[in-house]
Every structure is written in structure tokens, then in C-alpha cells.
């Protein structure tokens, strides 16, 4: 069963491999780690998406395609995208007068997709248009 546009709470953060490739962001290793989205088993089932299946995540500020990863310990209704260009494509620049954008706790929708995950160079090009 494929459920379209499931509402989720988006958070982001560091991972070891993301950190190891902080100075190596144009690499395959960085792409494989950071252009991903962690969900728990039950949300993966609800979405009808398999490991490494592509999902589209949308917020009021943007949308991005990433690979789904099952991760126990992620609460139901929460998705985690490692900090980086793919997570930030979904973040508002508004800081509510405090200087800090909301990088965590963003209302998002997620759905399975056949679309490709953009490489970092292609993702950056979308801003320059």
C-alpha cells in the first residue's frame, strides 16, 4: 500500500560518516551517507518503501529526493536527514528574529518516488537558476 503525502516531523543532525567526509563533500561516500532519510520500520511499511527506495520529502520551503533507510530508535512520525545540502533544501531561512533557522522540527510530507536523487552539484545548480 502506498500512502501519498504522509505528514512527518523532520529533524537533522550529524553522523560519523558525514563527519568523516566534512572536507570531502563532493565524494560518493558523502552522497551515500547524507542524501538519505532515516525512518523507523513501521513508517517504512506504511509508506511502502524498501531500504534504499527513493522518497520525496516536501516542506513549505522546498522539496528533495533522498534514499530511505530503516533505523530503529527513530520515533514514529519523525524522519532524520543527516545535516547537509539535502536536509537544508527543506529549511526556511526565517529565524523568527533569533538569528537561528529552524533546522529541526519542520513540518514535512514524505512519499515514495521514482525520481532520482540529485548529486550535490546538480542540487546547487537549482539555487542558481
Amino acid at each position, binding site marked *: 500500500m502506498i500512502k501519498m503525502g504522509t505528514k512527518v*516531523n523532520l*529533524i*537533522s*543532525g*550529524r*553522523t*560519523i560518516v*558525514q*563527519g*568523516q*567526509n*566534512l*572536507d*570531502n*563533500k*563532493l*565524494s560518493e561516500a558523502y552522497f551515500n551517507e547524507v542524501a538519505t532519510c532515516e525512518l523507523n520500520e513501521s513508517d517504512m511499511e506504511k509508506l511502502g518503501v524498501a531500504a534504499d527506495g527513493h522518497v520525496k520529502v516536501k516542506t513549505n*520551503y*522546498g522539496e528533495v529526493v533522498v534514499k530511505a533507510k530503516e*533505523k*530503529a*530508535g*527513530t*520515533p514514529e512520525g*519523525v524522519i*532524520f536527514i543527516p*545535516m*547537509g*545540502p539535502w536536509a*537544508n*533544501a*527543506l*529549511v*526556511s*531561512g*526565517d*529565524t*523568527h*528574529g*533569533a*538569528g*537561528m*533557522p*529552524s*533546522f*529541526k*522540527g519542520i513540518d514535512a510530507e514524505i512519499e515514495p518516488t521514482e525520481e532520482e536523487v540529485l548529486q*550535490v*552539484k546538480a*542540487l*546547487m*545548480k537549482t*539555487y*542558481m537558476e
Partner: protein
Amino acid sequence: MVEITDVVCSLCGCVCDDIVVEVEDNKVTKVKKGACAVGKSKLMGHGRIEEPAIRENGNLKDCSYDEAIKKAAEILAASRRPLLYGWSSTVCEADKVGVELAEEIGAVIDNTASVCHGPSVLAIQDVGLPSCTLGEVKNRADLIIYWGANPAAAHANHMKRYSYISKGYWTEEGKKNKKLVVVDVRRTPTAKMADVFLQIEQGKDYLVFSALRALLYGYDDVVPEEVGGISKKDLLETVKMMKEAKFGIIFFGMGVTHTRGRHNNIVNAIETTRAAHTHTKFSIMPMRGHYNVAGINQVCTWETGFPFAVDLSRGYAWYNPGEISATDLLIRRECDAALIIASDPGAHFPGESIRHLSKIPVIQIDPFPNPTTEFADVVIPAAISGVEAEGNVYRMDNIPIRLRKLVDTEYLADEEIMKSILEEVRAIKEKEGE
């Protein structure tokens, strides 16, 4: 082959200074001990920006250092609202020249605290910070609380060198006589090690701090059976551990600063620490990310009076995060040129802010190509601080440590590049004034 001991890591705010590496043919060939997986990756190196370059007709074209520096100076001198951003992955000596340049051209100077612990800075300015050094934590702390922080991934040596696993003067048995509490939305690798894991509902940190404060002050009756997804039983158990500790410490991370409530969450975290003081010794510390983000806050404060988001366009320092912090400036499309040094807003700024940044002239100074390089107009390669260049940095507890130079390089250090740009800008201004 030469073995170098007491190498200082230039990756995260832990600034580990007990690393041993092997150097052969002017290259770090092995990290023998001391560094975590992330620090090791930094020391061993990655692909570099090989040559200075200037963008022409959409493509970066190699040029000399002199040409790139001259172009950078022209862009900055002509800009009416320049932004100088980054400064956290370089040394204080380069940061100092950055502030001087900002003053010279009336720029906004901001650093990565803006998208990291900026809210912590605001909270500390509000209510102060009962903190300590990591040495004190190592030698005294028997209760470690990580809140919205995942050191197992982000500061992989933190527990081993300074907190839960470290062995100190009064903590000689390491974790045997210590307790670890982790508060997080996800069951992270750090959470898996905890004696008590409080799985908080996303965005409910303020409520849970408030509940702990009430319990620490003895107002058990006002706390409901569940707060932010955590049962009163677990909160009471945590408070019992806090009261019984000889020395407790709260380390907090982006889980609290990036989420709803921002600086208010940190104010409440600090007030929770104060509430614990009615029972025992307690301290609190932000888990600073970049190895010298604390350092640029120091330099910026002693040069301008303020730690980040400083506007020097008025001829005096103006500080108002939320108005002139980098992302705010970009979302309003206010700045017309930017110098980005030792940071990567292309990867770490909200998409909405990158949209403007990618369209204005951008000068990038960095050892490594990254998403910012994709839209930078002038790219200036730099020596890697802590590997190819030395200088002072501040650890997350504001202890200054000197980075060492391990190998020689032909790349210029950040400080030299900044001084050359400043000199060129002054020459342009002098010529204009004639």
C-alpha cells in the same frame, strides 16, 4: 619516517591534543593513536582545491594567488553591503585580520555560531553560564547528561577524553562510578550507552527542563504524570541522580538550539543547572562544533565587543542577531557580495538563504572544494590549519590551544591570504581617495 607526538586535532570542539602521527615524504601517512574516526579522516586528508581560480563565463579558470587576491579585493571594495562569514575552521590569527577587514570596508562579520550555538550565546548573555573546564569534568564529574547532543557521532572522543569514560583524579575508575543520562528524540549511538535514556518528544525540551526545575526545587505536585513524552517516574529518577551526584554536568547540543524555543531552551537549561546547585555541584557546557568556533567568538568579542553577527557598516559595532545574522541578511537579499572562509554555507545554510548567496559575487577561502565552490566566483586555496599551518584555537570550554604544523606546503595560510586581501583593499581605497 618521522613520528610526531602531541599533535592537535583541527576538526571538532574537543581539540584533542594527544595524537600521534607518522609523516613520510612531507605527508601524514598514519594516525597512530589519539584521534577518533572523524579526526583521523581530517588528518589523513582529502582532495584539495588545487589552484586559485576566478569564474569566467560560468566556469572556474585557474589563476595565480596574486590575481585571485586582487579580484577578491576589487569585489569587496566595490560592495555596498559585504558579508564576511565563516571563521570557525581556521585560527584566531586569521580571524583577527577578518575583523580588521570588516572594519575597513564596513562589513557584516558573522561566524558559524550563527547556525550552531548562536542561541546559546544569547542565553548566556541573558542569564550567565555556570560552567567549568573539560579538565574539571574529567577529574570530578560523576553524572554526565548529554541533552540534544550525540557525541558518539559528532564529538567521538568527548566521552573518552573528558566525560563518561575518562579517568581523572577523583574519577580514577572511569565509568564504573559514573552515571550517564541522555536526552534525545532518537535512540542515538550515545543514547544506547546511557544508564537512563529519556526519549523526549521533538520540540518539548523547554517543558522537560521546566519539569526538572520544579522537581529540583521540591514542587513535585505541579508536575503532571508525563511531560514531553517522558514519565514523571523517569523525571523523578533523573532528579534523584542529579541530587545524589557529587558533580554533575549538562552538555547540550544542536538538539536544543536548532529547535522551537531556541535561546529560551538554553536559558531554561542554565536555570535547571542553577536549581541543581541547591543540592550539589553542577555545571553546564555547550558542545561547540567546529574546532575554533569558540575562538572566533573570543576574537570577535575582544575586537568588537560582540561574539557574532556584528555589523560594522555604521562605523561602530552593531549587534543584533535575527536582523544581521548571515541567514537573515541573505533571506532579505541585502548583501551584495560575500567572503566565505573556513566554512561551507552551501552545505549548511537553509536553501532559501543559499538562493541569494549563489547569485552574488562570492569569494571562497578553503583548503577543500565543497558545495560553496559550486557558485563561488573567486576560489582561493588555503593551507590546512593544524596540518600545514599553526595558530591558536579555543576548545569548547574556551581553553586556548596552539595547533601545530606537521608538514610543509606551498599553499598560503588563511592569515596570509586575509592580510593580502586587506592590503589590496586598502590600496584600492587609497587610490580612490586620490
